[in-house]
C-alpha cells in the first residue's frame, strides 16, 4: 500500500490560456494528491486602458466606449455610466426612457443567464443542456436585435434618455418571446432540480458560506446563492425598478447548485417584470436635452448587472470630458471568493466552480495602451502588419503554413 504521507504539494499553473477558461486569467494551484490546498489568482490580462481613455473623450463618446467593456453586460455599463452623468448634470430622465432601460436590462439578464446555463452544462459534461440553452437564447437575442439593432452593445442609452422607442408591434413580439422562454425555463428548472446526475455534480461543490460571502464582498447571484439577500434593483433602485414589484430569489445551498437555482429563478422573475414594464410603459418623450459640458461634481452609480453589483464613479470638471471614471465590475468582487470555494476541493471541480460565478474578465480588467520603451514613436500595427509579423514569427521557428494553406485552398475548390 502506498504511504500517503509521502505526498507533497505540487504547483500547477492553470491559464492564462487554458481550454477550460473562456478568457485569459491565471491561477496557480497547489495540489496535494487531487485536492487543492491553496490557490492564487493573477488577473489583468484583459486590461485595455478604458478608464484612462474615458478621460480623453467626451461624455457621449464614453457611453459607447464603456458599453464595450463587456459584450454580455454592455447595457449594464452604459446605464451605470449615464446615470452618474445625469445625476451630476441634474437631468430628469423621462419615465418612458427609464422603463425602456429596465426592459433592455432584463432582456440582457435573460440572455446572460441562458448563456451561463449552457456554459455550466458544458463544464459538467452535460452538453445537451448547452445546445438547448444556447438555442433558446437566440430567441432573446433576436428580440434584442429588433429593439436595438444589435445582439450586444445595444447603443440604446444616451445621456438624458434612450435613443430608440418601442412600437406596439414590438411589444407583442417581446411578449410572445417571453411566453416561449418562460415555458423553456420551467423545463430547465425541472432539469436542474430533478436530473440526478446534474444535481449530484453541482451539490456540495464550490461551497461559500454566508459569512464568507459577506466578508469577501461577493455580489449578485454568487452572494444570493449563499443566502445574502441583496439586489441593487431593490435596495438602491434605479431606472424604473422602484415601480416594478419583483422577488429577489436566494438560496441557502451555498454551492454551485444554489447558484444555478438562483439564476433560473431570476429568469422567471425577469419574465414577469418585462410583462409589467410593457403593461405600464408610460407615454412621453425619450430624452431630455443634455449639456455638452457637465458641471463640476461627482456621483456614484450602481446597477444590478447579471453578475451582480456594477459600480461607476464619475467626477466631472465643468468641461465636455470627465475628470475621472472608475469602473468596478461584479467579477472583480466575486473572483476573490473563488479561492475560498476551492480550498480543500478536488481539482476536477475547478472549471465548474470558476464558471459558477459567471466570470467576465473583460469587465474586470478594463484598460490599457501599450507603451514600448524601445519604440516610442510607433508601437501600433495594422491588421496586415500583425498578419505578416505572425507568419514571420512562425517561419523563424521553422513552422511554415504555406503548404497547408495551399492544400486547404485545393480542398475548398
Amino acid at each position: 500500500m502506498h504511504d500517503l504521507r509521502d505526498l507533497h504539494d505540487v504547483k500547477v499553473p492553470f491559464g492564462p490560456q487554458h481550454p477550460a477558461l473562456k478568457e485569459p486569467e491565471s491561477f496557480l494551484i497547489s495540489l496535494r494528491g487531487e485536492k487543492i490546498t491553496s490557490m492564487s489568482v493573477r488577473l489583468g490580462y484583459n486590461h485595455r486602458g478604458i478608464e484612462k481613455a474615458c478621460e480623453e473623450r467626451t461624455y457621449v463618446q464614453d457611453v459607447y466606449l464603456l458599453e464595450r467593456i463587456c459584450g454580455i453586460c454592455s447595457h449594464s455599463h452604459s446605464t451605470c455610466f449615464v446615470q452618474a452623468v445625469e445625476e451630476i448634470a441634474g437631468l430628469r430622465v423621462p419615465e418612458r426612457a427609464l422603463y425602456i432601460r429596465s426592459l433592455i436590462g432584463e432582456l440582457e439578464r435573460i440572455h446572460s443567464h441562458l448563456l451561463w446555463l449552457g456554459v455550466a452544462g458544458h463544464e459538467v459534461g452535460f452538453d445537451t443542456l448547452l445546445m438547448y440553452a444556447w438555442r433558446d437564447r437566440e430567441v432573446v437575442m433576436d428580440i434584442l436585435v429588433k429593439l436595438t439593432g444589435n445582439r450586444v452593445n445595444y447603443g440604446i442609452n444616451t445621456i438624458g434618455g434612450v435613443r430608440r422607442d418601442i412600437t406596439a408591434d414590438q411589444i407583442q413580439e417581446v411578449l410572445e418571446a417571453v411566453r416561449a422562454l418562460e415555458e423553456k425555463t420551467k423545463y430547465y428548472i425541472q432539469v436542474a432540480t430533478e436530473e440526478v446526475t446534474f444535481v449530484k455534480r453541482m451539490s456540495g461543490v464550490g461551497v461559500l458560506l454566508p459569512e464568507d460571502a459577506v466578508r469577501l464582498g461577493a455580489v449578485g447571484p454568487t452572494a444570493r446563492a449563499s443566502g445574502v439577500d441583496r439586489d441593487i434593483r431593490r435596495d438602491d433602485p434605479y431606472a424604473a425598478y422602484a415601480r416594478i414589484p419583483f422577488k429577489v430569489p436566494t438560496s441557502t445551498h451555498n454551492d454551485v447548485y444554489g447558484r444555478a437555482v438562483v439564476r433560473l429563478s431570476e429568469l422567471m422573475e425577469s419574465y414577469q417584470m418585462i410583462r409589467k414594464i410593457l403593461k405600464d410603459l408610460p407615454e412621453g418623450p425619450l430624452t431630455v436635452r443634455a449639456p455638452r459640458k457637465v458641471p463640476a461634481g461627482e456621483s456614484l452609480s450602481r446597477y444590478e448587472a447579471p453578475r451582480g453589483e456594477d459600480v461607476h464613479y464619475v467626477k466631472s470638471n465643468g468641461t465636455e470630458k470627465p475628470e475621472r471614471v472608475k469602473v468596478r465590475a461584479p467579477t472583480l468582487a466575486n473572483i476573490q471568493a473563488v479561492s475560498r470555494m476551492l480550498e480543500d476541493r478536488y481539482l476536477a471541480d475547478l472549471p465548474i466552480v470558476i464558471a459558477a460565478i459567471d466570470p467576465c474578465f473583460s469587465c474586470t480588467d478594463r484598460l490599457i495602451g501599450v507603451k514600448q520603451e524601445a519604440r516610442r514613436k510607433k508601437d501600433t500595427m495594422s491588421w496586415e502588419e500583425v498578419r505578416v509579423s505572425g507568419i514571420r514569427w512562425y517561419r523563424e521557428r521553422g513552422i511554415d503554413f504555406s503548404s497547408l494553406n495551399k492544400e486547404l485552398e485545393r480542398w475548398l475548390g
Partner: protein
Amino acid sequence: MSLEDIKAGLEQTFPFLQGAVSVPRPRRIFVDVGPAHTAEVMEHVVLRLGFSSLSAITGLDEGATFGVIYHVNTPQGDVLSLKTHLERTSPAVKTVTGYFPSADIYERELTDLLGIQVKGLAPGHRYPLPDSWPAGEYPLRKGWKAVC
C-alpha cells in the same frame, strides 16, 4: 437612521468634519477627511454605522494631491464615500484589508495605476498591469500619456 442623522452624528463625533459631509441625494453620503483622521473615521463608519461592505476604492489624480475614495455600503442600499487626500510626494495609505479582505485587489490597483503605496498590504501579485510594466510609469496620473 437617515443619512441626515448620520451626517449630524459624524459632525458631532468628529468636529473636524464640520462642512465636510454632504448628502447629495437619497442613499448617497460623501465624507471628506484629511489623512490624519482617515483611520478613525473609517473605523467609526464600518463598525458603528453599519457600512460593512466595500463596493470599490477609487484613486484620483487631483493635481496638487492624490485622492483616495473608499465606497462602503450598508445592506439597506446606502453608500458612503469616504474621501482622503494625500501629499504628492510619496503618497501612501494604510490598508483596509483588516475590515475588508476584498480591498486587496483595489489597493493593488491604486499602486499600479497611480503609484499610491499601501502600507500593511500582504505580498501578492500586482494588478492590473503586466509584470514587465516599466517601474515609475503610472497610467492614471494626469501627466501620463499613452503613446499609441
